[in-house]
């Protein structure tokens, strides 16, 4: 089942603008009407989100807010990289109708299919 038919497997450090990124975890749900993509980007707020569609590719970028804590680290597990992931869009997606929102670090992107390209039943005359 491929609408986001292909994912670009660029390693984090090879993005064109020389910033180090990691790929966020993403869930994709597909329906007749289109797709919903949810990406985990803790530490990112509205101002850090950049979503672009170019050459049939969906590029998702989330710039992380630097942690504001006082003191020295005793123990570190979080990695303060920003997030980036690229998907090749199924041509049936209407790029003009793509919408997104972010809540508590989860970016949800709605990718509706163009009306005339949705699956439809043909009835006999």
């Amino acid at each position, binding site marked *: 089942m491929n609408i986001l038919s292909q994912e670009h497997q660029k390693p984090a450090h090879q993005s064109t603008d020389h910033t180090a990124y990691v790929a966020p975890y993403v869930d994709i749900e597909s329906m007749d009407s289109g797709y919903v993509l949810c990406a985990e980007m803790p*530490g990112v707020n509205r101002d850090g989100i950049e979503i672009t569609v170019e050459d049939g590719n969906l590029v998702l970028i989330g710039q992380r807010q630097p942690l504001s804590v006082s*003191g020295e680290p005793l123990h570190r597990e979080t990695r303060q990289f920003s997030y980036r992931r690229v998907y090749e869009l199924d041509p049936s997606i209407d790029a003009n109708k793509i919408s997104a929102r972010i809540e508590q670090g989860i970016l949800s992107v709605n990718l509706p299919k163009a009306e005339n390209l949705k699956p439809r039943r043909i009835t006999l005359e």
Partner: protein
Amino acid sequence: MNIIRYHNQGQSDLAQTFDRFAALRDEMDRLFDGSFGPVFRTPGSFSRWAPALDVYQDKDQFTVVAELPGLKKEDIELSLQNGVLTISGERKQEKKSEEGYRNERIFGRFQRSVTLPTSVAGDKVKATYQDGILKVVLPKAEEAKPKQIEVSID
């Protein structure tokens, strides 16, 4: 009379081989955990999801930071007992459509515990949850009182 020196050969070859396999498996586990970013195993934990955690300190307080994207405040439980802060809760998955669904995110219960090196004032602990990041600030105390304290999130 022959005096035969007794050589302590240490472990048999078989035992040494098993040890090497165990060490290799542990090394693979470490490598595997490291490459998956925030998915850590907590020994003895029943949950698959162990959120990434940082601990900081300055002269007045500890700050514990946990990455917990996609929750509501009500889904997070904090408790402090005997100098151990426990962060736990559950991330519920919404009902999906019957169609295809690609799944990388982890849902379900999570739990992490942090043992703080010096005692803290349990009644002055404050926590905030924003952009999927939980930040718990624990002011240091002069004396430790062993008691269980429930902490509420602002």
